[in-house]
């Protein structure tokens, strides 16, 4: 089961179309962009969340101000790096680098993107087994699906394995 079907065909189309246009003109033309289309869904068993360790993955572009480099949010090709920070990190210590969503809601209430307090409540109530020590964070603008699969996903899986996550919750912006 491939998580990215027809990856070579997609990559050829991306390189010769969207990316070539960007490289030659400096402009982004979404008319030349082809979204990934999978025909098969992954079949996998569920698990009991009350017995699982959960990894929160956020696309909001959060990083620890002064300790971690900001994401390159202005990069037209996107920034495929990830950051991790403890689930106990105060919101006041975080900054955000992501140019492709309206930050107004997040500025009013950062829990709309990083619902760590609610997940901690669920652990206390016994609805969720535990949280991993870290949050995985990235700046979720990624036109190059191949780089997502080849670069980002292995890094995220490395964190998940190291922290013994049995489940992951993805909260895109």
């Amino acid at each position, binding site marked *: 089961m491939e998580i990215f079907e027809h990856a070579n065909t997609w990559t050829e189309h991306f390189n010769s179309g969207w990316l070539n246009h960007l490289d030659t003109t400096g402009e982004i033309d979404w008319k030349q962009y082809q*979204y*990934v*289309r*999978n*025909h*098969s*869904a*992954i*079949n*996998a*068993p*569920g*698990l*009991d*969340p009350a017995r*699982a360790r*959960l990894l929160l993955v956020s696309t909001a572009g959060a990083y620890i101000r002064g300790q971690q480099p900001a994401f390159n949010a202005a990069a037209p090709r996107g920034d495929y790096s990830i950051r991790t920070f403890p689930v106990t990190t105060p919101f006041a210590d975080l900054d955000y680098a992501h140019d492709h*969503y*309206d*930050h*107004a*809601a*997040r500025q*009013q*209430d950062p*829990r*709309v*993107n990083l*619902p760590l307090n*609610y*997940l901690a*409540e*669920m652990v206390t109530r016994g*609805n*969720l087994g535990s949280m991993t020590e870290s949050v995985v964070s990235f700046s979720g603008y990624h036109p190059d699906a191949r780089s997502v699969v080849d670069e980002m996903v292995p890094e995220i899986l490395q964190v*998940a394995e190291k922290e013994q*996550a*049995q*489940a*992951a*919750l*993805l*909260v*895109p*912006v």
Partner: protein
Amino acid sequence: MATVSVLWNGGRARTIRPPRTLITGFGKGMALGEPNDEVTHRAVLEQAVGMLRLEAPAEQSLSR
């Protein structure tokens, strides 16, 4: 590893066919709901985490 995604709009995600998705219908930048709407935030997360029990693929809309 079981995964679940909370999405404000399911349209694009459906083409990728992720294992488990909860479609909330809120705006971009606030998939969990309006700022400071703690009741909704908790409801979204409880439903999303609950979806981990389901065999994938699974898609639900927010039930309130």
